C-alpha cells in the first residue's frame, strides 16, 4: 500500500497471517546520551536514569533506561513497519531493566487474525524486546487494523 503521509498504512492487514513477523530491528548499545536526550524530550528527570549512587542505594546494579524509551522505540519500529494509523492497541510490560551498554533486539509476530465487528481486518501481535544477553526486557502486544 502506497504511503501517502506520516502514519499512513504501509501494509494490508488482511495480507498478514499467523506467524507473519515485523522485520527485526537492532538498536544500541544504549548509552547515557540516549537516556539524557529522552529525559529532555519527555521533561522527566527521574534520578534513577542518571544518578548511579542513588540507584545502587536502592538495590539496582546501576543506571537503567526509562521503560518508555524502550517502549517508544518499539512503538516507532512498529509504526514504521505498519503505519501508525493502523495501530489500534499497543501494550507493554516492563519485565527487566535495560542497563547502559545493552544492545536491544525488537521483534513482533502475528498471533491471531480476525475481522472486527465493522468488517475490518485485524491482526494481534506479540512483541518482544530482548537484550543482547538474551533477557526479555519488555513484553508487549499490539492490534493492527483500520479504525472502525
Amino acid at each position, binding site marked *: 500500500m502506497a504511503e501517502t503521509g506520516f502514519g499512513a498504512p504501509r501494509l494490508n492487514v488482511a495480507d498478514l497471517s499467523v506467524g507473519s513477523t515485523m522485520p527485526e530491528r537492532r538498536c544500541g548499545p544504549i548509552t547515557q546520551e540516549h537516556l539524557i536526550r529522552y529525559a529532555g*524530550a519527555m521533561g522527566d528527570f527521574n534520578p534513577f536514569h542518571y544518578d548511579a549512587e542513588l540507584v545502587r542505594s536502592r538495590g539496582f546494579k546501576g543506571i537503567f533506561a526509562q521503560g518508555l524509551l524502550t517502549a517508544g522505540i518499539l512503538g516507532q519500529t512498529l509504526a*514504521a513497519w505498519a503505519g501508525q494509523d493502523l495501530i489500534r492497541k499497543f501494550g*507493554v510490560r516492563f519485565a527487566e531493566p535495560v542497563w547502559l551498554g545493552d544492545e536491544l533486539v525488537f521483534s513482533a509476530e502475528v498471533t491471531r487474525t480476525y475481522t472486527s465487528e465493522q468488517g475490518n481486518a485485524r491482526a494481534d501481535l506479540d512483541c518482544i524486546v530482548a537484550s543482547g544477553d538474551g533477557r526479555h526486557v519488555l513484553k508487549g502486544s499490539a492490534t493492527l487494523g483500520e479504525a472502525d
Partner: protein
Amino acid sequence: MSDVPPTLDAVNFAFPVEWGKCRELALALLDPDPAMAFSDDPGVVAPVLPVPVIQPVCSFRYGPENAPPIVTMSKRGMVDRSRLLQGGLDFEFHRPIRSGDTLAVTERLANTYDKKTSKGVLRFLEFEAVFRTPEGELVCTVITTNIERRPGDDG
C-alpha cells in the same frame, strides 16, 4: 481489591499537539523513518505523535492547578515517588493523533491493589487518561500501571 482514595479528583485540561514536540520525541525514540529524522519543514510533513508518548506531550501542560494525580498523591504523602517503577502501559487508539490537534485529557487514579511477590508486597497503582477532541470525540485511552516498592523490599 480496589482501594481508590475517594478524595483524589480527576484532572482535566486541554493541550495542543505541537509539531516540534512530536519530532523531538520521535528523534529521542530513534524513529527509523528518515523523513521524520531529516525533514524540518512543517508545511511538508505532519508528524503523527509517537505511539507511547501522548502523556509526555500533555505533561508539559501540567501546573499547580492541574497537577497529575501521581504528583497530588506524592504531595499528600499517599505514595513515595522515589520508590515507584513503571509496570506497564496500555493504549487504545480510536484515531491517529497528529500535530495540529488539540486534545482534552481527563486523568484519574483508577485503581490500586497489592500483590504478594517473592520480593515482598508490591503496591500497584493504575492511572487512566482519556483523550478527546474539543468536540468530545474519543481519541485515545491510556492505562498506566506504576509499582511502588515498599520499604524493606530493596535489594
